[in-house]
């Protein structure tokens, strides 16, 4: 597809999602108390979007990922939360 065709197919969808992200950040900011590590991870991942380099989807996923290579000793939960808690520890 040409860049024009990509815009024709996906601009409105991407615009909609970007406004949703902005509204999410406003919602967190309006909330009381302090956010947990996920908020900081999200803000850091957002920085990837302003890059001119290709591979932005992979870079965002990497930003949320556990960067370590060793297994953990014990799984104490089954669920993943979307961001690596260790980034702020």
């Amino acid at each position, binding site marked *: *597809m040409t860049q024009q*065709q990509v815009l024709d*197919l*996906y601009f409105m*969808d991407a615009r909609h999602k970007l406004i949703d992200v902005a509204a999410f950040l406003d919602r967190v900011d309006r909330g009381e108390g302090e956010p947990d590590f996920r908020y900081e991870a999200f803000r850091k991942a957002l920085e990837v979007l302003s890059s001119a380099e290709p*591979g932005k*989807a*992979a870079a965002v*996923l*990497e930003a*949320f*990922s*556990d*960067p*370590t*290579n060793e*297994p*953990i*000793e*014990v*799984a104490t*939960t*089954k*669920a*993943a*939360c*979307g*961001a*690596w808690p260790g980034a702020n520890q």
Partner: protein
Amino acid sequence: MRYIEPHGHMVSRTTDDYVAMVTAGCEAVCEPAFWAGFDRSSANGFYDYFCQLTEHEPKRAAKFNLPHYTWLCINPKESEDVGLAEEVLSIIPEFIDRPNVLGIGEIGLNKNSRNEIKVLEKHVDLAGSRDQLILVHTPHLEDKRKGTRLIMDVLKNDSRISPERCIIDHVEEHTIKMVLDEGFWAGMTLYPESKCSSARAIDMLEIYGSEKIWMNSACDWGISVPLAVPHTMMEMRRRGHEKDWIDKVSFQNPISFMKQSPKFQAPA
């Protein structure tokens, strides 16, 4: 449009979903063993589940003339209890020769713990000793990148395992290249909230090519869409992809992988 659903947890779905899938062009469905959403209390629960996967569910699908295949294992979400896992592994041989069992799966890791790796190694050993295909679940979200690497290390450490006989599922943009570079098949799971959207799946196909890749809905008891594969095929058409290319990714590629099991009968 014809397609194969290579990863659907149909025991969690309604009969209406079968009707919708067949109406949309589904010609075969493959169901890896999965976590029930709660921990089963004993290996007996798995015995019943394996009976369901190999006896009851194929009959349910057959009512709509839909071939049903399955994969057996204890899911990584229940692998922290190594004792239970060993009990479950001991009953799998009783089922493995049944006509709709294609291999061992979906095995892998969930939180990347040492016990999960032990249980993964035991599954890989079972597959290697019986020359079975392997279907791999990779961890969710922040655990995926690390887990995918750990899983590939386990598979590569067993000389009986050929990468082309393993599909590593739930790849995303940060893991697809490492999986394909090591010679494994890659699966893309189309979920509304996590894993991969239709648009992103097609992006990856455009970037990495259409060889050794399939896509699936992994529809289960959670937020998931049983028609995610045909929805993505429609999105491919919107982008102008040729029908032959769509057919290769959605129909022929799953056949190419699964026909490595002599039990898989390719739809005509």
